[in-house]
């Protein structure tokens, strides 16, 4: 499996759904709006089994075969009304109580047109698409009525439906145009038509797929290149003004034959039956830009879906494993990532295998751009960063790392600024009219994530440069370094004795200024006095005078401390006992005398007496003073 040709980047997920395989007796239907698969035995008479979207969601019931083959069968979103089409011009509605149908109350709705299909737009509303247009009906089970709510008249050849966007793409008879129509509860909105370039161009139903990439509805049109004859996929995104479709991208398949399209994690997967491979495209990556249309090549050469072994019931203890045929002619694909093999009775979801894919993209910058758009990209991205810092590269990949940091932090910054805006824009007492929570980016790599990666490779060569590059990148996007990162940078700079860098980072306030960080610096001040200077600078910037005073007292600089205390806190707030005690401990009579006299003068000013108030608990120092300098407090020269 690990052979180079054994690398697969797409797999059939293990949470697949099994159903009764299609046969003469059993007909299988799939509703791609509710993602439900219907296995209908004998027109429903011997049972209908509905499975999906989850593995264990099952509804089983029976209904009478009312004649006519079932064309289409779909539950309302709440599974309470089942719509069944057996003839070209009528739809039946079966109401459910719990999960059993009320077969006596079937409502039949007949129209005069040719029904192409129907879709549920609401629990009680259904849109019928027929050759003459789109009509939204409301079903009233209590009154056993079906009422027309809204209609759009337009002659239609065929249509495609996207359930998660509620958009129908109509191919009109006149002018051969593709018109997207937004169908919602009680509303039908016609959107600007898809620009096909050539007005005479006809598009077949089988060549069109509706999908969604990066939150935008997209119309994929398969067509052959007029010069090379190779197949291409035109991607029309509905992101223009008024959701107008715009031809933005062209995916170059460089193959001919039959194709089918899925989307997985915002990637466009184009399956090619003849070669049994699937090509991956990411429209967010850069490509060749011609006339405002980006031409993309596949991210890597095409590879097949990972083989899938189906465990069959067997008498053997391990069971019997059957290798499923991939790209089988029995496969039908649905959006966004559903594969159904009706013959086999299997419904799978396609999954992206991100790790093997990473090994196929050798350009680390492109890989980063790719991973930053994948829902499962974060861990891989962190791994990529870690790999680049590996010692084997001897620092040669540092410039690449610099660019990767920028890409990561660009996303990080936009998120930080967005959350900050949300916090500051709304005062807490005002209820926001749009209670919309901002959605975080697909891959958000914050400082804390990076710190973890850095920690795993701490104390290696080039670590200082890596951290400085990361800091530079943060700085570029106006993000301040937090505590963990700041500490890490400090440790690394001290380890490498880069004191000048440390000094300058602190003077530029590029590290977090906090008491814990300053104390962290102080704890290393025995390494070099430069660190002590930097620590005090930081405390000074924060005006954390109490700590500086403590530091000075700790160093035995009682007078300096007192001076600072007087200037910063004010004479009234200086605690006499603390300073007298420190002066006493210095065993320097001159210092003790000076400090004592300072407080005496303070007493005089505040209490109009030289004596200390009792509350200050200075008795022992008064005693010491009187012993050391007897003779009614006359100033005596100190001995040393």
């Amino acid at each position, binding site marked *: 499996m690990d052979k180079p040709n054994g690398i697969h980047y797409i797999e059939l997920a293990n949470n697949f759904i099994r159903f009764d395989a299609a046969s003469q007796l059993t007909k299988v239907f799939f509703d791609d709006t509710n993602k439900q698969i219907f296995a209908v035995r004998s027109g429903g008479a011997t049972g209908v089994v509905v499975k999906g979207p989850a593995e264990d969601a099952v509804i089983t019931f029976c209904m009478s075969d009312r004649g006519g083959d079932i064309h289409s069968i779909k539950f309302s979103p709440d599974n309470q009304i089942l719509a069944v089409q057996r003839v070209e011009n009528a739809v039946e509605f079966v109401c459910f109580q719990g999960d059993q149908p009320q077969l006596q109350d079937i409502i039949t709705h007949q129209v005069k047109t040719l029904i192409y299909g129907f879709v549920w737009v609401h629990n009680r509303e259904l849109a019928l698409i027929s050759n003459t247009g789109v009509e939204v009906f409301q079903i009233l089970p209590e009154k056993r009525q079906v009422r027309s709510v809204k209609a759009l008249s337009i002659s239609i050849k065929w249509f495609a439906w996207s359930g998660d966007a509620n958009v129908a793409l109509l191919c009109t008879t006149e002018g051969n145009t593709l018109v997207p129509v937004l169908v919602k509860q009680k509303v039908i909105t016609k959107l600007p038509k898809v620009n096909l370039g050539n007005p005479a161009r006809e598009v077949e139903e089988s060549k069109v797929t509706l999908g969604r990439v990066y939150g935008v509805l997209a119309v994929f049109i398969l067509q052959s290149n007029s010069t090379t004859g190779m197949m291409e996929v035109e991607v029309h995104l509905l992101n223009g003004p008024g959701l107008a479709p715009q031809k933005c991208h062209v995916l170059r398949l460089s193959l001919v034959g039959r194709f089918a399209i899925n989307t997985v994690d915002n990637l466009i997967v184009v399956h090619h039956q003849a070669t049994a491979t699937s090509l991956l495209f990411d429209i967010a990556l850069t490509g060749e830009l011609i006339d405002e249309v980006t031409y993309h090549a596949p991210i890597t050469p095409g590879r097949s879906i990972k083989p899938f072994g189906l465990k069959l019931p067997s008498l053997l203890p391990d069971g019997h494993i059957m290798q499923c045929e991939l790209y089988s002619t029995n496969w039908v694909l649905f959006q966004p990532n559903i594969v159904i093999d009706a013959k086999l009775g299997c419904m799978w979801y396609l999954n992206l295998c991100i790790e093997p894919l990473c090994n196929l993209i050798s350009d680390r910058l492109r890989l980063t751009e790719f991973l930053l758009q994948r829902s499962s990209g974060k861990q891989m991205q962190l791994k990529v960063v870690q790999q680049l810092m590996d010692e084997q590269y001897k620092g040669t990949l*540092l410039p690449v790392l610099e660019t990767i940091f920028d890409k990561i932090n660009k996303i990080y910054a936009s998120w930080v600024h967005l959350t900050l805006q949300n916090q500051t824009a709304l005062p807490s007492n005002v209820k926001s009219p749009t209670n919309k929570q901002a959605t975080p980016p697909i891959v958000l790599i914050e400082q804390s994530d990076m710190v973890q990666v850095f920690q795993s490779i701490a104390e290696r060569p080039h670590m200082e*440069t890596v951290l*400085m590059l990361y800091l530079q990148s943060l700085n570029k996007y106006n993000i301040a370094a937090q505590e963990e990162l700041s500490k890490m940078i400090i440790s690394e700079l001290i380890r*490498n004795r880069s004191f000048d860098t440390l000094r*300058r980072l602190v003077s530029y306030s590029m590290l977090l200024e906090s008491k814990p960080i300053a104390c962290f610096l102080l704890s290393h001040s025995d390494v070099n006095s430069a660190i002590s*200077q930097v620590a005090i*600078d930081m405390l000074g910037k924060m005006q954390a005078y109490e700590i500086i005073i403590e530091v000075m007292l700790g160093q035995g600089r009682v007078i300096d401390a007192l001076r600072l205390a007087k200037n910063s806190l004010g004479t009234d707030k200086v605690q006499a006992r603390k300073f007298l005690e420190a002066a006493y401990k210095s065993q320097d009579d001159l210092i003790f005398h000076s400090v004592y006299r300072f407080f005496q003068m303070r007493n005089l000013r505040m209490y109009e007496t030289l004596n200390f108030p009792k509350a200050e608990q200075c008795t022992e120092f008064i005693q010491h003073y009187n012993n050391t300098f007897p003779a009614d407090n006359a100033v005596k020269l100190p001995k040393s």
Partner: protein
Amino acid sequence: MSQVLQRVEITLRSFYVFNSSLSQKEGEERKKVLYYYPTEVVEYTKINDVGLSEGIIKFIGTFTNEDDCKALHTQKTTQLFYQPEPGFWLVLVLNVPKELKLKDRIEVAEYRGGEVSDRIYRAVLRQCYQMYRFQHGPMQARLTANLAEENQQREQQREKLSLELHQFYDKYLLSFRDLASCDIMDMLHSIQYLALEKRIFLRAHNFCKLCGDTFAGIRDCIMLYNQEQIICGGKLNASDLYSLHAYIQAVPKGADPGEDGAFVEKVTPPRVFLDLDNCIAPFYLLIYRALNITLCLFVDVAPQPEFYEELHAYMGPQLISLARDIADEVSKRTAANLGESGSNDASSTSPKYLFINEQSLKHHTNIFRHGKNNQKSIPRNVMSIIADLANPIEENCTQTTPATEELQVKATNDFWVVKRRCNWRQYYVILCKSKATLLDVTQEAKRIFEQELTDDVFFDK
């Protein structure tokens, strides 16, 4: 009444290097004199002078440490002593300034020895040694033969060292700046850093780091602006950085590199000695210029031609773009400064300031140095006061706790010097006010501290 006819400024009288241990026998005294300036002096005088210095050092040594012999003042000279390596002494003898006066119609010379600041000139002497060491390494390293070995080999090594000292100092002493204008910055060996916005600083810093990390041979990388102001000092200690700074300024500009950067000297890159982690080791110094930026790269091994090419291809474009951005920023800054203080006339009476970080030896000042455009610096007596107030930054003086001081000094002419010191920084403000009170001076100094101390933190304002 006496009238000053002429004033003769301080001049160099002699400079010599000796090591007493090089001459053990009588009659071989000349051997201990490794270098003597002026060279044309007869040998007898050289030996005599060295002998006298030896005597003085010995004599002082009976009272204190031998190392404590620092300066000797005579009526006409000031002699400064410095022992950078055990046994090796450097002596600088200066003629003190004199004024020829007419007293009762007789010409009298008045020697002004008091105007010579020991501390400044001792620092000048120290730099004489530092520059030698920067380019040639420690002297002792040249004399590897021990006593037991053959005399001939010892003598050869001695002669080689002596020759090297001659080659170096003959040139160095010629380039000696006007000795009279040596000032406090010469004493403290401080350097100016280029003030940059943090983003661009980080870019420059990381550029240097990346050069070092990408090319294995590069040990350190220093960036200067206009060969003068430091942008990134790497991990060089302050005294090596000062020597490098002095060295770079003496390097000829070379051909204009134009739009591309270029190496100044590719054929024989100079060897320099750096003190990295308390170990003096030789490196090759590559100097690369791009626009206003000078990049100094210290390389372990002699670089091959391909190395230059690779390096040039790697650095050139990045450095040019960085140099442009730095130049933009500098011009923006100077424009802003001009607008801010348009009336800042540089007269000798306007307030001056000097701030020095003892840890990085970075200084920030508005005192014009070495008489550019005849701008008067501060009067000599004021400079001497500052030199006396300044706390010398000797290489081994690593205090564990910073001192805090505040001093105000009034000079005999109308000048005031306000000194503050805290957290390993020294700050001086020089004011000229004839009728100022202590209160005025305090307030004016406070104003200047607050106005100028923007990047350093002075919490005791």
